[in-house]
């Protein structure tokens, strides 16, 4: 059903995740776009800002809220060649989180660097 593009065009894709992982479906469905999009061999980066940083929190347990614990998928992104994960420092700090609290390797950048990342991207998905 999915056809890879044969145009050879490679664009800078940026997926901005700014919502908490649970409570709404945005974060989960955003990850589905990332996984499908990985087959298209584009230049992909993920950014985590605001409550989106909670998506990467270690040791999530959703068993009591009857939703899927999709946080485990982030660890598998490497296999999809999705390796550029950026987390905004201010968002982490204002929520009392440290890099050690996250489940995967990320690059922590400040908001001015995040602004540059967004400006330099060509296709931006904002979930």
């Amino acid at each position, binding site marked *: 059903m999915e056809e890879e*593009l044969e145009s050879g065009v490679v664009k800078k894709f940026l997926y901005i995740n700014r919502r908490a992982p649970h409570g709404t479906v945005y974060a989960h469905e955003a990850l589905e*776009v990332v996984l499908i999009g990985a087959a298209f061999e*584009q230049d992909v980066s993920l950014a985590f800002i605001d409550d989106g940083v909670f998506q990467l929190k270690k040791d999530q347990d959703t068993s009591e809220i009857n939703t899927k614990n999709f946080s485990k998928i982030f660890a598998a992104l490497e296999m999809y060649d999705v390796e550029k994960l950026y987390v905004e420092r201010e968002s982490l700090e204002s929520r009392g989180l440290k890099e050690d609290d996250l489940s995967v390797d990320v690059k922590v950048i400040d908001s001015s660097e995040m602004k540059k990342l967004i400006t330099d991207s060509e296709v931006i998905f904002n979930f």
Partner: protein
Amino acid sequence: MIFGILVNEGPYQHQASDSAYLFAKAAIDEGHTIFRVFFYHDGVNNGTRLATPPQDDRHIPNRWSELANEHNIDLVLCVAAAQRRGMVDPDEMKRNKKDADNIADKFRISGLGQLIEAGVQAERLITFGD
């Protein structure tokens, strides 16, 4: 310019679909091209032909269908989002053994690859949602 449009919210609850429609119409009127409108999250609910809004209200799904008929616009509902929310076309009806379909004229159901393709092919991808 070639635009791709992403609609992330359902009809009536949220202004996203209205804004996307008005944007698409204005862009076409100015001579631009809409490569595709992709509906994701609750946005897939814009594609139901079973909506019956009051007569003095706009009919959001029909409005999309009419725009697509007039200007040959590709209206795509994400299959994964559609399956979760009960949006069904004749193929999906057969595949998932449902007793009905509910997709409106000119809409089709396809994969998320269609959204990525819109990102690659369009000169601008515009998102409508929160």
